[in-house]
């Protein structure tokens, strides 16, 4: 029998997923520091929901449960969704989003390896469309909030949607910089004056930019570990920077600078953790450049002209649709063949 090669040197799928989770740890720390411990609750709810629904669906689909649960891909989806949701999102929102991501976007398409869309982004998009108010209501970073909620208060809020007595909702929430920028621009204010508002930090959102920085850190770790290729984050960030730079150069009063776009919203999460999902992304090197560039362009356009403050989820899903086309048209030259 011919079953060569007999040797292998590949990290298993579980190890790859574990490293992705590891890369998210710094941002979870930063998140906790900026928004409080509520995120840990959200992460836990998402993880449990993901594992339970994955197990249930594997059972229904008569697939072996243990090897597929231990590949940790469901946990990665759960964490990415949890980190994309607003902190202090109600528990049921997390459950619904995760359930949708795992059951509809992943298992019903055939499970690991077969989902054409990024499951976390499907879950996110479903929630954003279904519950737009909750999804755009972000708590203020602790340094800005008038009233700082403790961990138990946050836990209580997540499960019962009730704040401690004598604390009003406005005291703990604030608009996100992308949101604030958008609404203020509509009121004919100029960028320079808008960014004087307290929600803005040095580069992006006050506090939030710390989380963004942690994503960058985790992303560099993934690059170093060769879990992700340089093509995707580089093309995404470069295109986003180039787009915003072009607009900013034309009219700095109306368009925010490139650094703000890179360090705000889900830019870094998207660059290193969302578009780098191999299953729903392209496989060819050139395809990766096109894909990431496309996501960046759509993200920017939604941010500036669209109806939502950030556009990462829709941009990723739209580009997911183009993946077969991109792959088919970016096939590299095979050794010994001329260019087509």
């Amino acid at each position: 029998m011919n079953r060569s090669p007999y040797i292998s040197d590949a990290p298993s799928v579980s190890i790859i997923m574990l490293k992705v989770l590891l890369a998210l740890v710094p941002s979870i720390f930063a998140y906790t520091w900026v928004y409080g411990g509520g995120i840990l609750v959200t992460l836990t709810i998402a993880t449990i929901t993901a594992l339970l629904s994955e197990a249930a669906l594997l059972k229904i689909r008569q697939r072996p449960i243990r090897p597929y649960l231990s590949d940790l891909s469901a946990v990665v989806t759960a964490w990415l969704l949890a980190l994309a949701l607003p902190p202090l999102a109600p528990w049921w929102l997390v459950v619904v989003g995760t359930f949708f991501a795992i059951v509809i976007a992943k298992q019903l398409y055939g499970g690991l390896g077969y989902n054409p869309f990024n499951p976390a982004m499907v879950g996110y998009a479903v929630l954003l469309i279904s519950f737009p108010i909750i999804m755009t209501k972000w708590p203020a970073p602790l340094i800005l909030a008038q009233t700082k909620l403790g961990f138990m208060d946050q836990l209580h809020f997540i499960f019962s949607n009730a704040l401690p007595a004598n604390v009003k909702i406005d005291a703990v929430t604030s608009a996100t910089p992308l949101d604030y920028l958008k609404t203020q621009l509509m009121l004919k204010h100029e960028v320079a004056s808008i960014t004087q508002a307290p929600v803005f930090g040095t580069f992006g959102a006050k506090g939030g930019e710390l989380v963004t920085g942690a994503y960058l850190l985790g992303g560099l770790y993934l690059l170093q570990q060769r879990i992700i290729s340089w093509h995707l984050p580089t093309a995404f960030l470069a295109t986003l920077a180039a787009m915003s730079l072009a607009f900013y150069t034309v009219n700095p009063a109306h368009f925010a600078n490139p650094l703000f776009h890179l360090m705000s919203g889900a830019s870094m999460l998207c660059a290193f953790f969302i578009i780098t999902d191999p299953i729903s992304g392209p496989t060819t090197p050139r395809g990766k450049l096109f894909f990431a560039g496309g996501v960046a362009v759509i993200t920017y356009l939604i941010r500036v002209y669209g109806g939502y403050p950030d556009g990462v989820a829709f941009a990723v899903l739209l580009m997911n649709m183009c993946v077969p086309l991109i792959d088919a048209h970016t096939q590299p030259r095979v050794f010994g063949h001329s260019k087509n």
Partner: protein
Amino acid sequence: MNSIIQFASKLFQGQSAADADDVYRFHGGVHPSEHKQESTTLPITKLAMPEKLVLPLRQHVGYIPKIKVQVGDHVLKGQMLAEAEGTVSAAIHAPTSGTISAIGEEVIPHPSGLPDMCITLTPDGKDAWAPLQPVDWRNTDKKELVASLRASGIVGLGGATFPTHIKVRADGKSQVHTLVINAAECEPFITCDDMLMRERADEIVKGIEIVKFLLGADQCIVGIEDNKREASIAMTEACKALPGASVKVVPTLYPSGDARRLIHLVAGIEIPHDKRSTDLGVQVFNVATVLAIYRYFAFGEPAVNRIVTVTGSVNKPQNFEVLFGTPLQSLITAAGGSKANTSHFIMGGPMMGFDLPSINVPITKAANCIIAATPDLFPAAPPAMPCIRCARCADACPVNLQPQELYWFSKSDNFEKARDYKLFDCIECGCCSYVCPSNIPLVQYYRYAKSEIIAADKAKEAADLARERNEFRLARIEREKLERAQKHAERAAAGKAEAAKTEESAKEPVKTDTEKPAAAAPDDAKKAAIAAAIERAKALKAAAAADSSQQKTESTETASSTSNKSAKNESDKDEQAKKDKQALIAAAIERAKAQKLAAAQAGAAPKNVDNVSPAVQAAISEIDAIREKAKQAVKTKDADAQD
């Protein structure tokens, strides 16, 4: 500060030195742990004479050689036991003197594990050579040298086992300018070429000289991976004796020993997928093959032994000089025996080798390495997971294929797509499987898809042949019909001409001049008609079809009756003038032209109609059309006669 500058310049120099060395890189590749140290500590050892030698007839690529001995014959060492038959074939020689004890099926080292025809030789212990005839190659005609090589039994010893005499044969089309010696030995564990170069570099270079001469090559580049320092030093030293020969050290990166990869590495030439390396003036020989050629020309020794690496879970891993046909068991015993947890034996390296079916298999010309495998050395792969499209395989592929796509297409039996994505450029090196996080046996999928496609192609070829035969038959029927009509017309014309001659020969002798081309014309017309019929038959492939086989028999019958009728009509018109005959010929020529035109137009349409019956149906409609034309011709002639 100075040290930093020095360090930087060193780095820079290192880089530029590599550039200057002209070593090209190929895409991808992997670097598994080498495991070459184990078997290079001891020198090559000659194996003791085993009790019997089993020589499979199929030890090379190509036709099975013809047996020239019988059971009971006593043979001398180097005596030919089986003769190369056909172009691509290789002879088998007695590895020692002794008696032929059996000719029959034995288990052979093949992935299938199936037995095959073998000659069994019981050594007499004398190891007496048959009279050897060294060849003065410098003063011999090249054709004779090639013919002589054909009798040497030498095949590519790198593992491909392609008969050597084919590779040095000048095909008259391309001139080889560069001889590449494959000494990369990129697979882990294998060290037979390494040891050979360390110990016998001078003889190898003498072999290179012969091959270079045979090919008429200007230069020779010996490609050695940089993990074989001693070998490359020995070869560099030995190459000084031969002008135009040089050693090029290439980075250790599997599969640099693949011929096309190596040519690219050392010569910077990318061989197009549809061409051979000789088309671009490059020929590749394995280092051990070159040595065998030297031994054959210098001493007259045919291929009777080779160097085999015995490694893995054996007590004394080393290289042996082994007579072909030696049972694996003797080799393992000589290597100190296999360790307790040995599960099986692998022939070849861990990347492309295969499991041996038993410890009784003989060593053949292809056996470069035997690895005693244990579960620790080669742990069983965990169950395969779904492909996560991580494209690590694409990054590792030395051919720059997209293995994840090929896997997808192969798995779903989408073979056309697999072919489009260049499945047949896959060299089955195993790099993709080696790096797959989901442990998918990718190479097995590709082998499966390739074999399915080849089988389908063969079936299609057979169907095409059947269809062609049918079309030829139809063309023949058509031709015979035309010939019959032609004969009748000729006979009629001849009768008329005779009459005309006797009447008018005195009055108008000039007429005979016009007679001549007319007499020659029937032949041409016949040829044209046949050609037209064949052309038409070819064009049928494109035509659309009605169905029902009843229609077929019906129309065939009517066709023949009509032709009879028209022939009869014509014979009735015996008094028809020469003019009519010429008109008929002209019509036939016109028809042929029209058919050719139609065929040419139809030729643009796709020809690979797999089903036979539409073609048959189309043929019938075509015949109907011809019948109509014939009717028309008869009618016009009738009308002419009435006028």
